[in-house]
Structure formats: structure tokens, C-alpha cells
């Protein structure tokens, strides 16, 4: 009876995940969808705690289980509540890493269980004991371990990189080293499954080490525009790792949830790669932003750029017919979204048409800018996707770039040696005038110079985005 109720719990959980994810892909129902999935998760978790039994035995160690649940809930809740909007992407990456670590730990415990379960059998049978292990189970444990561990260490590095604690790092032949580590890992795992050598436990721990190492090396050299892709990919990895657990325990809700996320995450990753005109393979071997010398900026740009004063900028924008705003990470860092919305309203009250051009990878995550501007009550209709925006630039009088750099760098179109060559960009040069707000002339996240800043129609407005926008707003109100 109780097991049947548990089966029902799992069914409800699975349905809630699927419909929750479906609702999440529509702005009107998204929040409810998230809530629905959360409720389904709760049902599945508490069903497991109270109803799960194996060979007639219920689960024990309730103190440990509830202790862990309480600690995890309190810490997770506080972290998620306190994090700033700008730090949202690295928070997602961090939580993703926790999930990966959880999957890897499960594999480790199950492996120890498998190997050390019966010391007597082990002692009498020697290493031949290993050959009696269930191959399928071993395969799934190893899969869960490798994927979970890679996802864990990779997410930790991604987290560190996004909050600036970890710097880009690469050495010559890094992608070959990556491939070697990966190949070695697969070979070891295959060797364990096929041959069952005496050193099986040793090899198992070597695999843990190699997987963590691979995750680190896999993410370390990747910089700039590729970060969102990596997080999305690691997200789907963790999904697959969770599904391995579902196989292991013949648990349908883990299987459905894990595979669902694995498939959806992979699709999202591929879509992002397409948006940046890069292949998943390139991202995987980590060739972006370095590794080979040609990826580094060869010549420093030395041309002259011109600055624009606040009052000039105010006049140019205040008397324009159409202004397009290109937000980037600088806007997020400065928390300038509300001022930005103010500026938009002030300009519109003067009869200026204002629109936002959103690059798919502006900021540190796809949709980062949309979330940020939505927080400031900017309406959806004003946010243009790249293709539409590129048409609209032609009729715009002024483009105001707020802390965006790589996504407007013309090198992506003109310079085959540039690491971002081939990435579609916002073609802001089509507008009559370009005003760039940046804190300094420092290059963007991908570490390359931007020719745009040196063009005749471009003028620079230095300063923190929030401060600059506030001053600009005051000036525009002044011209009456």
C-alpha cells in the first residue's frame, strides 16, 4: 500500500516537472510553473523519506536526513534571497555544482557499498569477487560519478570566474591535455567494467580525481561570451548525472527529472552556440579566448577616440527622433536598470522613440539583460532581439551603449584573427551617432580591443553607468 502511494507521489512529481518546465517557457505562467515544480519536488522528497522501502525495510537515520535537509534549506534559502541580481548567474552555477557533487557522492557511496558490502566474500574470493559485480550497475555508478564530478568542478570554476575570483588560464596544447584526461578517464572506466582488475577501487578513486581535474581544465580557458553556454551545458550534465541515480534505484521521478533537464539543457546549449555561430565541439575543447597565440590580441589599438560631454550627450539624445539603448554587463554591475528606465520615460515624454537592443549573450547569461530590465518595469515590447534590432539601427539617430563591449565589436565581422570572429553582433554602426558609456578604455570580457570606439561617429562617455545615467537624466531635464 505505502509503496503504491510512493509510486503515485513519483508520478505526480514527474508530471509537475514536465508541466512546470512547459509553463516556465511562457512569461505569463512562468512563476506558477516554478512553484508547481517545487511542490512536485516536495511531494517526491517527503514521499521518499516516509514511504520508501527496500526489501521490506524502511529508511533509517532520520536525524541525519532531517539535519541535512534543514541545513541545506536554511543555507540555500538565505543564499538565494540575499544574492544581488547581478550575481544571479554565478548563483545558478554554484547550485548546479552542488547538484553535481550530490550525484557524485551518491556514486561513491554506492560503489563503496558494492565493493565493501561483504568482507567475508571479498576475503575468500580475492579479486575474483569483482567479476561477480553487476556490470550495468557498475557502468551507471561510474557514469554518475564522472558526469557529476565534472559538473561539480566545472561549475565551481565557472562560479569563480563569473565573480572574478578565478582568472582565465590556459597553456599551450591545453585542448590536447583535456582530450588526454578525458580519454584516460573513459579508458579506465571501460577497463573496470570489462576486465574487473584487482585494483578496481584504486582506479575508481583515480577516476574521481581525473573527473574533477577535467572539469577544472574544461572551464578554465573558456572566457567571455562562452560562459553562458558552459553553464547551460554543465546544467544538462547534472541532469544526466541525476538520471543515472534514477537508473540505479529504479526511480522514475529521478529518471524523468534528470533526462528532462538533460535534454532541455542540451537543446538550450545548442541554441546558444548557434546564436554565437560556434560549434559545441569548439566550446568543449575550450579553444575560445586563448590556448593558441593567434587568439590573443596582437596589436594594441592606438587610434584616437573622442569624449562627449554630458550636456552634449543630453542635447543629442533629447532632440533625437529615435534612441536605441544597448545594455551590457556594465549596466548590471552598476545596478543602473532603474535609472535607465527613468531615462527612457523622460526621453519618451519629449517625444523620442526609445527601444532596447538585446544581444543574446549580453551580460553573463542569455536573458540576463531581459531579467534586469524587467526588474525595472521596462515593458517587453521595447526589448528587441538581435535580428529586429539590427534592422532598426538603420533608422536610429543615437545608439547609447551601456557597458556592452564584445557584443558590438565589429571585429567579429571584419577580423578573421579575432577570437570572436563569426559571432553575430549588434550592428550599431548603422545608426547616425553612437555614444558609448564605459568606465574606462579597458577591453571587455573577451579581452580584445574594440575598433568601434575609434570610429568618427562614436563618442565616449566615461563613468559608472548609474552615475553617468543620473547625470545625463538631470541634463536632459534641464534642456526643458
Amino acid at each position, binding site marked *: 500500500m505505502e509503496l503504491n502511494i510512493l509510486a503515485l507521489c513519483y508520478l505526480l*512529481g514527474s508530471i509537475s516537472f514536465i508541466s512546470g518546465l512547459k509553463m516556465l517557457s511562457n512569461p505569463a505562467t512562468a512563476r506558477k510553473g*516554478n512553484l508547481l515544480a517545487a511542490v512536485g519536488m516536495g511531494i517526491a522528497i517527503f514521499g521518499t523519506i516516509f514511504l520508501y522501502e527496500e526489501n521490506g525495510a524502511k529508511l533509517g537515520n532520520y536525524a541525519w536526513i532531517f539535519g541535512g535537509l534543514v541545513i541545506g534549506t536554511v543555507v540555500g534559502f538565505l543564499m538565494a534571497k540575499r544574492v544581488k541580481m547581478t550575481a544571479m548567474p554565478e548563483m545558478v552555477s554554484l547550485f548546479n555544482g552542488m547538484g553535481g557533487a550530490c550525484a557524485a557522492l551518491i556514486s561513491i557511496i554506492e560503489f563503496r557499498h558494492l565493493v565493501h558490502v561483504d568482507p567475508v566474500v571479498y576475503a575468500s574470493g580475492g579479486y575474483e569477487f569483482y567479476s561477480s559485480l553487476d556490470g550495468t550497475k557498475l557502468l551507471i555508478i561510474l557514469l554518475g560519478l564522472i558526469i557529476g564530478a565534472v559538473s561539480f568542478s566545472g561549475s565551481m570554476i565557472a562560479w569563480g570566474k563569473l565573480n572574478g575570483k578565478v582568472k582565465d588560464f590556459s597553456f599551450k596544447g591545453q585542448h590536447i591535455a583535456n582530450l588526454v584526461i578525458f580519454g584516460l578517464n573513459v579508458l579506465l572506466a571501460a577497463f573496470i567494467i570489462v576486465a574487473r582488475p584487482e585494483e578496481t577501487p584504486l582506479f575508481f578513486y583515480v577516476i574521481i580525481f581525473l573527473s574533477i581535474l577535467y572539469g577544472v581544465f574544461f572551464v578554465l580557458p573558456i572566457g567571455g561570451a562562452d560562459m553562458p553556454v558552459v553553464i547551460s551545458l554543465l*546544467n544538462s550534465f547534472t541532469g544526466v548525472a541525476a538520471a543515472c541515480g534514477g*537508473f540505479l534505484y529504479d526511480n522514475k521521478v529521478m529518471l524523468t527529472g534528470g533526462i*528532462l533537464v*538533460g*535534454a532541455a539543457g542540451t537543446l538550450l546549449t545548442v541554441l546558444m552556440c548557434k546564436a554565437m555561430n560556434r560549434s559545441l565541439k569548439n566550446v568543449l575543447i575550450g579553444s575560445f579566448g586563448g590556448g593558441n597565440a593567434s587568439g590573443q590580441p596582437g596589436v594594441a589599438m592606438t587610434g584616437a577616440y573622442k569624449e562627449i560631454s554630458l550636456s552634449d550627450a543630453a542635447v543629442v539624445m533629447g532632440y533625437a527622433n529615435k534612441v536605441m539603448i544597448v545594455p551590457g554587463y556594465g549596466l548590471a554591475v552598476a545596478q543602473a536598470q532603474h535609472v535607465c528606465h527613468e531615462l527612457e520615460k523622460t526621453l519618451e515624454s519629449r517625444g523620442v522613440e526609445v527601444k532596447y537592443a538585446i544581444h543574446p549573450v549580453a551580460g553573463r*547569461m542569455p536573458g540576463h539583460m531581459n531579467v534586469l530590465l524587467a526588474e525595472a518595469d521596462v515593458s517587453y515590447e521595447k526589448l528587441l532581439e538581435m535580428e529586429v534590432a539590427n534592422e532598426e539601427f538603420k533608422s536610429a539617430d543615437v545608439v547609447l551603449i551601456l557597458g556592452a563591449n564584445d557584443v558590438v565589436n565589429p571585429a567579429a565581422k571584419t577580423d578573421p584573427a579575432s577570437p570572436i570572429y563569426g559571432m553575430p553582433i549588434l550592428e550599431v554602426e548603422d545608426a547616425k551617432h553612437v555614444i558609448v558609456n564605459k568606465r574606462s578604455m579597458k577591453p571587455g570580457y573577451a579581452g580584445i580591443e574594440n575598433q568601434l570606439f575609434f570610429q568618427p561617429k562614436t563618442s565616449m562617455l566615461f563613468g559608472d553607468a548609474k552615475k553617468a545615467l543620473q547625470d545625463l537624466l538631470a541634463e536632459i531635464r534641464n534642456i526643458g
Partner: protein
Amino acid sequence: MNQILEWIALHQEMIYVVVLMIFVGIEVIGRVPSVLHTPLMSGANAIHGVVIIGAIIVMGKAEQDNVPALVLGFLAVVLGTLNVVGGFVVTDRMLEMFKKKK
């Protein structure tokens, strides 16, 4: 060959679920507008926290005297809970900002 067929036959139920779920996963997010990419990723992130169930099972089965299993299992439960709770709360906070259109 025979072994492979046998393996497939033995696990066919699981394999069906996997195959169908792959299609469902792709279908479900196929038409997502780019505005929702970040929340969707975050929501999916919370959903794979379902791995917590495995952690609970492992923890609940651990023998009282098996200290490594208890400690590792406990850690797994904590990390899994972080993934679930943090993931859903972060997603909710993001979506909170998508208030009604003006």
C-alpha cells in the same frame, strides 16, 4: 549480440522513459522566448536537484556503524537540498520581476 539484446529487453522500461523524456524535454522548451532563457535555465537547474532523492535513499540505508557512508551521505543530502531550495528560490526571485505588462 545476444547479450546486448538481452540487456535492452531487461531494461526496456527505463529505455522507453529515457527516449520519451528526451523528446519531451526538447519539445517543452522548443518555443521559449529569449526573455525567459535565464529563468528557464535556473528552473531546470532546480529540477535536476531531484538527485536529492538518491541522497536520501543512500543516507537512509547507511548502516549505523558505517561512518564514511553516513558522513558522505549527509553531505550529499545537504548539497542536494541546497540545489533544490536555492534553485527554486532564485528562479522565483527572477520571475518575481516579470510583473504584468504595463
